Structures are given as structure tokens and as C-alpha cells.
């Protein structure tokens, strides 16, 4: 089959070696684009980025260790639209070399350890199904247990339709650990990249203690396709841009890619994990979780309870009287 090239014949280079910037329409050699962190050298347009590049950009060399790489999606609904879900998954795996749309692990930023989750939009539009949700929940739970900050770099079209409400419920599964991070005094930094929409934005991604965005990133609840499908209303230009979200109070700052690593390093120094070994109390909506919350945060703790009829067999809190919220340590004890 003849592929129609989107470029005029006059240009002598082949499409494989250069890219046209969608913002300023200048031509950028691909090697130059990669060297420049996939940012247009002319206008600063931020191209989408893969997980591997993102890790190189953000984390100390060789510090990243992926966890739960073996998690793999099933097909709980037996879903089949124009082609079966399992085929779509397989195609995405081949196309991206990834097993799923997100990866999590532990690494360091200028020596400061973090639990980090990263999305790749190239894998089925970065959509969140059971496995993506599971990875993020484990990422947050690891931050809780290890008492290190959590960071998630989002790039997602939203919940994955092919897993139905199981995907929808990942919004709650990924959000529930954040209550425990609050109670434990562990910061969570959410980074929104192009595009972050739908269910990912409507859950953990909007709940960072600090929320950063890349310049001009598309960020919105209703993706353009969804909006056109359900409301039939055209969204104004630039409406869902990072810049608009900053103005409307949903983003703390817009950080160019070249500044991301130093900015994170600074924030990690400025937002220290609260002192360990206590049941911190906060005045936020997250108060009252004590050591039990922290200790029992790991998913495995719940395996048994989940398998039983709910409400019959659940681990009880330690009978040490500390209750769900013990005393915040004196300020001078820290």
C-alpha cells in the first residue's frame, strides 16, 4: 500500500530524520530534537516523551529500579470492539516495547530517593486500566512504607474503556493511598504532561501537594473526543492548556522540561517528609490515620480480607491505645 507522505516533495530529507514542529512549523532534525529533550529549539514546543527518556531526564543516572515490571493486563470483560482488547494490548506492546502504559519504581533526584510512576501516552493513549491503577497504588504504598516522596508523571487519555468500570474504579484505587500519605506527612508531587485528561486528571493527578505542568500541555477533564461525543460542544482554543490551569488555580507552576530536574530537587528539599514513627495528625481532610494506617497500607495486607466477605475478618489495630491518631510529637523532639 502506498503511503501518502504528509510533506511536500520539495523537501529533500526523509520523514524519518526530521520532524515538523506543530507549533512553529520549523523543521527539526530528529537527533537535534532528542538532544534538546524533545523540545523545539525554535519555539519551545514540548513534544511527547517516552518513559525511558523521562527517567533519564529526571532521575540520577542509573538510580532507577523498576518494580512490578511483571504486572500484565488481562481481559476481564472479554472486550471486543472493532478488534479484541487483547489484540490492541499486543499491538501496543509491540509498538512501544512496554508491557503497559505505566511504569513505577524507585530512584533518586540529586540523591533524594523518590517513588515514581510514569505514563507513556504511546501505549493505548496512556489509558488507565487495572494494571496501571495497580502500579500507581503500589507506587504510593511504597512511598508510604519507605517514607519517601511520591512523584507521578502523567500523560493519559483517561480511564481505559476496554476494562469498563474496573478502569473507572482505578480512580478510587489510586486516590485512596493519598489519604494515607497525607496522614503520614509524605509529599506527593504530580506532574502533568501533554496530554493529561479524563480519569487520570479526575483522580490522583489533581491531588498533588504540588502540581507542576509542562508548557502548553493539554490538560482537561473531558477530552476533545469525549466532549464532542457527549456534549457536542466545541471547546475554546487554548482552554485546556497548562497556562489556563495555572490562571485558574489548579497548577502550582509551569516548568520547562530543562528546568524539571532542578525544580524537583528544590521542591524535595523544601517539602520534607514529616518525622517518622508517629501517627501525624493534620487538620486537612485526611486526619486521624495513625500508625495502623501506615503499617497496613500495603496491598498484601488486605489480600485475605478482600477474599472474605467484607466486614467479617479484618485486621484489627494494635491494642496499644494509640488509636487511629496518636499524638503529634513535640516540635522540639524532631
Amino acid at each position: 500500500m502506498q503511503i501518502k507522505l504528509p510533506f511536500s516533495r520539495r523537501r529533500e530529507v526523509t520523514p524519518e530524520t526530521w520532524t515538523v514542529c506543530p507549533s512553529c512549523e520549523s523543521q527539526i532534525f530528529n537527533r537535534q530534537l532528542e538532544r534538546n529533550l524533545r523540545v523545539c529549539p525554535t519555539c519551545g514546543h514540548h513534544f511527547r516523551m517516552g518513559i525511558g527518556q523521562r527517567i533519564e531526564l529526571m532521575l540520577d543516572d542509573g538510580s532507577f529500579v523498576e518494580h512490578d515490571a511483571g504486572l500484565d493486563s488481562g481481559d476481564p470483560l472479554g472486550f471486543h470492539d472493532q478488534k479484541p482488547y487483547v489484540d490492541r494490548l499486543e499491538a501496543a506492546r509491540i509498538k512501544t516495547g512496554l508491557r503497559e502504559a505505566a511504569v513505577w519504581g524507585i530512584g533518586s533526584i540529586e540523591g533524594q530517593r523518590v517513588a515514581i510512576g510514569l505514563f507513556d501516552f504511546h501505549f493505548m493513549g496512556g489509558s488507565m486500566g487495572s494494571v496501571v491503577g495497580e502500579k500507581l497504588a503500589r507506587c504510593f504504598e511504597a512511598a508510604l512504607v519507605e517514607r519517601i516522596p511520591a512523584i507521578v508523571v502523567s500523560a493519559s487519555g483517561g480511564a481505559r474503556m476496554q476494562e469498563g468500570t474496573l478502569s473507572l474504579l482505578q480512580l478510587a484505587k489510586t486516590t485512596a493511598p493519598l489519604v494515607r500519605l497525607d496522614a503520614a506527612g509524605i509529599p506527593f508531587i504530580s506532574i502533568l504532561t501533554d496530554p493529561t485528561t479524563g480519569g487520570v486528571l479526575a483522580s490522583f493527578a489533581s491531588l498533588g501537594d504540588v502540581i507542576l505542568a509542562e508548557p502548553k500541555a493539554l490538560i482537561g477533564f473531558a477530552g476533545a473526543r469525549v466532549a464532542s461525543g457527549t456534549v457536542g460542544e466545541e471547546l475554546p482554543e487554548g482552554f485546556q492548556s497548562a497556562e489556563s490551569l495555572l490562571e485558574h488555580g489548579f497548577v502550582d507552576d509551569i516548568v520547562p522540561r530543562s528546568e524539571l530536574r532542578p525544580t524537583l530537587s528544590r521542591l524535595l528539599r523544601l517539602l520534607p517528609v514529616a518525622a517518622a514513627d508517629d501517627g501525624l495528625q493534620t487538620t486537612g481532610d485526611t486526619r486521624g490515620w495513625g500508625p495502623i494506617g501506615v503499617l497496613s497500607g500495603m496491598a498484601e495486607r488486605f489480600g485475605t480480607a478482600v477474599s472474605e466477605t467484607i466486614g467479617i475478618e479484618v485486621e484489627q489495630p494494635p491494642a496499644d491505645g494509640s488509636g487511629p491518631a496518636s499524638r503529634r510529637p513535640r516540635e522540639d523532639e524532631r
Partner: protein
Amino acid sequence: MSEIVLSAEAPTAEAIESAWRRVQLARHPQRPRTLDLIALIFDDFAELHGDRSFRDDPAIVGGPALLEGRPVMVIGHQKGKDTESNISRNFGSPYPEGFRKAQRLMRLADKLGIPLVTFLDTAGAFPGPAAEERGQAEAIASSIKLMTGLQVPIVVVIIGEGGSGGALAIGVGDEVLALENATYSVISPEGCAAILWRAPESAPTAAAAMRMTAADQLELGVIDGVIEEPGEGAHADHAGTAAAVKQAILGTLGRITRLDTEALLTTRYARLRGIGLVRETEVASPQLPQEPSLRRRIGRLLRLPGVPRRPRWSEIWPSGEDADANEEGA
């Protein structure tokens, strides 16, 4: 490792027709709405208004109520009865301020230590530009977060359409029930069809593929019980429907109000944590010990032996004793 895939085939015509019939019943114009059910179920109810920061959103209603004399907080989506009331209530699709009103009422329930009952009945959160501008995503996210940590028992009943994030925003509970003809989905069938089939007229097919009926949701472990509707369906018998819903709420509260706060929150976390299908393949994590078995992770989902599933409410209904036993509480 065994393959989990059940049947990766296009839905049959029969399945499509059956699913679509449920979708239409869930959207039936005569179906009882939140305020209808509240009037029939509770002894008294005082509607409270406002998010305390921008607007009162009529697409969500709520306030304290008495259930057999005992105080609860009730919150639900509210669709209109006719064109006029549907316009004023935005067809039951909340703006961010609707979810923020809900959060205010949840905090009040928490302060007073009274259980929370929510009714889900929305096509979804309103996706228009003004809603975006005021933070639709943030409002849903923070509402979900609040519910996961709320220190009172929460019963959720899907009474009509359980539409995506707008439903889940007031739909995190200790037990989630659904009326027989209610639906629950990650996206509307029309939206799904538009995206995956690139043909909105494939909505019935999408509805079947997403397995969005109450029975399907019970199978998937997303909900915990189905409430049978009387006769032809809820639209034909509001009183009978309300009676069934009331019984279901009383039974559930009778169970979950026995848990102390720690057990309640731990169980709620576990419930959420266990939803979804995750397969552990041979690629071991480089540093972590071997993960526990798939069986434990997805026990709820797969009906493995020894993992009881909750049957229909009408089948296990406690003969009134359960509810009575708790009569003196709360």
C-alpha cells in the same frame, strides 16, 4: 499461568438487546429519582444547599434525614421530571460546585458521626467549558479522596445511571448496591461507541461490550449487591422500589455500623484495592521479593473457591432482625 480471558468476541445480538433494554430502563423518564426515593424511604429530610464558595448546584441534592428514626446524611444526583426541571437541574449532570456541596455534607456527616447514604443517578459530570474552568476534575478527585477516608459508614445505591467519574465522585462506599435495572459504566455507551466504533449508533453494542448492567457489575466485583425491582421495573412502582431500597440500606447499615472506625476504613481501602484484574507474569521485580499469588490479588473478581460472593439482596435478606438489632444504635 492460566489465561484469564473470558470471551474476546463481539457481543451477540441477544446480549446487545438485553444490555440496551437495561440502559433504557435506567434512563426511563418515569424512573424514581433521588428526591422521590428520599420522600418514600426516610421519615424526615431537610435539604441543605450550597457549596459555601460559588453556587448551589441543583444537580446534586442532600441533607440530613431520619431512617427508621435514626439519623443519616443523604446525598444524590437529581435529574428533573420534565424539560423545565431537567434544564434547571442540568439533566442531573453536576458542575464542580455540586461535588463540593456533596463534600461539605460528607464532612458534616463525619462531624456528627452519622452514616452516609448516597444515590447515584447521572449520565456523568457536566463536561462543558465552565465546568472545566472551575475544576471539574479536581472536584471529582477530591470528592473521591474524601470518601475513601470518611470516618462514617457509607452505603452507595446506584438507582439509575451510574455515569463515570460523575457517579464515582459520590460513589465510594463500604458497600455499593444497585437497582436491578441500574447501570454503571466508565463512559456513556454513546461516548464509547463514538470513540471505539467511530459510530454513535453502535451505542447498544458498546453497552453490551462494557458489561454495564447491575448483574454484570456484581459479577465483576464492582458492586456488592443487586436490589430487585418490583414488577415491570422501578418506573412502574415507585413505592415498591423504595421499600426494596430501604430494606437494602437498613440491612447494609446493620452490618457495616458494627465495624469500628479502624476496621471500617481498612475494609473500605481493601475493597477498593482489590478491584480490577491484574496478572503477575514471570518477569520478577529485580529487587522486591516474589509477589503473592494472583489468586489473593483478584480473589474478589474471579470467584475462586472459598471466596464467597454476595448473592442478590432479596435472597439473603435478613428477616428484619438484623435491622432491629441495630435499632438502638446511632
